[in-house]
């Protein structure tokens, strides 16, 4: 990541990035990556692909997006996994998940937004204000969504700086909500078709459904190996795979993750792991961990535990369910897409029993010794739902620790104490 080749600098400059601030960001992410990832022992070889992707995170991948756009392609940025990638790809666009996982330019953000706004929102506004995210700048259109009040209002501010389109996400899951959500997907389709100048057809949509499902299937294979003791892959490596899934080239990523899954399955068969057999196994649930937010996984794993699953948007919610592949016509396929996406259990929905069931089921399937419920500070929906998560875990006999935090590192000492004590308690 410190490898700032000359042609990239020219590209970044043409994108309008603030090179000085961008250098600072890349430098920080690079040293964080080194300290968090490259110090791990016995990593699967297949992680080499993700190391390479991270080394080129603002380099080669941006060059690919740049070339695609120069050839007339359109890039669509998203912030949330409710935005269906299938639709964007079927219209000939490329979809990149924008990350917003680092504290940047908060002083500027806090001039226009309240200090007590969640880290994720502050981060994406900060990246824009400071001109440090090439993915944002490569996005011809950015799709927002009404998942929470904070994001909803932040998109109004963000929309003054970038071409933004906001989808309305229902907050309940009744039939009428599904109908409304379906109509939102149709509107998005038309919006993207206008952008790319290409119509979504039966064949293109069928192909993109299959392609994105294949990506999810590869991640499902990786997730399944984590039920083994010893775990064949660290939680932070598995988290990175999901984080990269949001923006990497789809077929290449799928192929690389299937290769990683092959290796992990072999490790499981051979009893090879990254942590000693019997190390405390932790399931993490809660708010998304956008790149490069590896804070909690790092704390857990440096304290001697191993994270075996993520019930979060950068985890099972991203890959666990698939879009049906047998839709006969466009209408049926859009129905299938609407159903799949509305089935995701974000805390913005009420009621949200599905998430509680998922947490308990995953804790059992992955043989977790404990659950850590993670909320970003000022994320009301998750912070309040914490009470239900704790109760559901306790009722199921699974120890649970709730943590409220943000992207800063100032509370790492206190969090480490709590996490270590939790690991002592569950073993």
């Amino acid at each position, binding site marked *: 990541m410190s490898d700032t080749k000359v042609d990239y600098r020219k590209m970044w400059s043409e994108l309008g990035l603030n090179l000085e601030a961008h250098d600072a960001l890349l430098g920080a992410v690079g040293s964080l990556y080194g300290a968090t990832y490259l110090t791990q022992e016995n990593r699967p070889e297949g992680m080499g692909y993700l190391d390479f992707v991270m080394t080129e995170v603002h380099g080669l991948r941006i060059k690919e997006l740049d070339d695609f756009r120069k050839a007339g392609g359109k890039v669509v940025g998203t912030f949330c996994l409710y935005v269906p990638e299938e639709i964007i790809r079927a219209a000939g666009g490329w979809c990149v998940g924008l990350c917003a996982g680092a504290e940047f330019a908060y002083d500027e953000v806090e001039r226009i937004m309240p200090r007590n706004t969640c880290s994720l929102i502050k981060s994406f506004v900060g990246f824009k204000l400071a001109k440090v995210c090439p993915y944002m700048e490569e996005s011809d259109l950015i799709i927002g969504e009404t998942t929470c009040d904070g994001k909803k209002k932040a998109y109004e501010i963000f929309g003054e700086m970038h071409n933004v389109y906001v989808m309305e996400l229902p907050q309940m899951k009744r039939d009428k909500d599904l109908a409304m959500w379906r109509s939102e997907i149709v509107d998005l389709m038309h919006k993207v078709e206008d952008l790319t100048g290409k119509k979504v057809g039966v064949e293109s949509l069928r192909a993109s459904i299959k392609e994105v499902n294949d990506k999810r299937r590869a991640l499902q294979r990786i997730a399944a190996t984590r039920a083994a003791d010893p775990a064949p892959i660290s939680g932070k490596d598995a988290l990175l795979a999901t984080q990269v899934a949001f923006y990497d080239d789809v077929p290449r990523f799928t192929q690389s993750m299937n290769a990683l899954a092959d290796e992990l399955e072999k490790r499981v068969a051979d009893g090879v792991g990254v942590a000693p057999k019997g190390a405390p196994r932790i399931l993490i649930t809660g708010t998304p961990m956008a790149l490069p937010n590896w804070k909690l996984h790092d704390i857990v794993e440096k304290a001697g535990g191993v994270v075996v699953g993520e019930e979060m948007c950068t985890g099972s919610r991203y890959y666990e369910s698939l879009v049906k592949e047998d839709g006969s016509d466009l209408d049926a396929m859009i129905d299938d897409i609407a159903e799949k996406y509305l089935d995701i259990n974000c805390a913005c929905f009420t009621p949200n029993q599905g998430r509680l069931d998922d947490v308990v089921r995953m804790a059992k399937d992955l043989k977790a010794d404990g659950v850590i419920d993670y909320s970003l500070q000022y994320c009301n929906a998750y912070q309040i739902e914490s009470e239900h998560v704790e109760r559901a875990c306790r009722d199921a006999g699974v120890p649970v620790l709730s943590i*409220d935090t943000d992207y800063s590192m100032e509370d790492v000492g206190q969090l480490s*104490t709590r996490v*270590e*004590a939790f690991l002592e308690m569950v073993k």
Partner: protein
Amino acid sequence: MRRVLGLDIGSRSVDAVWLEGTTVVDAAVADSGFDPASVAAAFVGRGDHDLIVATGYGRRVAGESFGAQVVTEIKAYAVGASALFPQAGAVLDIGGQDTKAISLLAGGRVADFEMNDKCAAGTGKFLEVMARALGFSLEEMAAHSLAATGDVQISSMCTVFAESEVTGLVHRGVDRGLIARGLHESIVRRTISTLKRVGATGPLVFAGGVARNPAMVALVRESYAGDVLVPVDAQTVGAYGAALSASNDGGL
């Protein structure tokens, strides 16, 4: 017999206990100052031990510098409190920077615990700041609080906001003793609700530096539904528990 040095390296003090078997042969407390590692090194420098177990914020540094085994404060207090009071059902430790509420299983195992978040609300530090705002020493603040009758509500738990609230009350001419009582009560209210959240039942061991504050002890006794036991050496329970947690296989 093997002699174990238990060190609790906290934000306000470094506490040391020398143990043979389960018997305390010596104990010492020193201010952390600006270099707690050196304070700890002075205890280690006595050379009067075969093995070190460290807990508290400085535990990792002690692990690296002195080859100490490491346990968390949660485990150290659970083990220490149950050794002193085998009937204990829960532990409350209010230290300089942390508040911990721990519910116990038989044998001193931790059933559940909570700690305060990143700010100093409801900790020893909070009381220090408020004593200064009132122009009291900590001892005077406790004494005036015990003597006060009546009721004044302090609603802010944030140290910074509470300080403004206290200044406001002082300017309105409210009796300083009464404000002191209100401050202690605000911490105790919060603490009792934390104890309820972890499901604390049975006798409560109140440990940590703040357990030496008689006003806090009196208020916790009033509010907790069960016996409240205060160890004679409340401040060294963590160091004692750490020493008792010494394992023969290198620790955590």
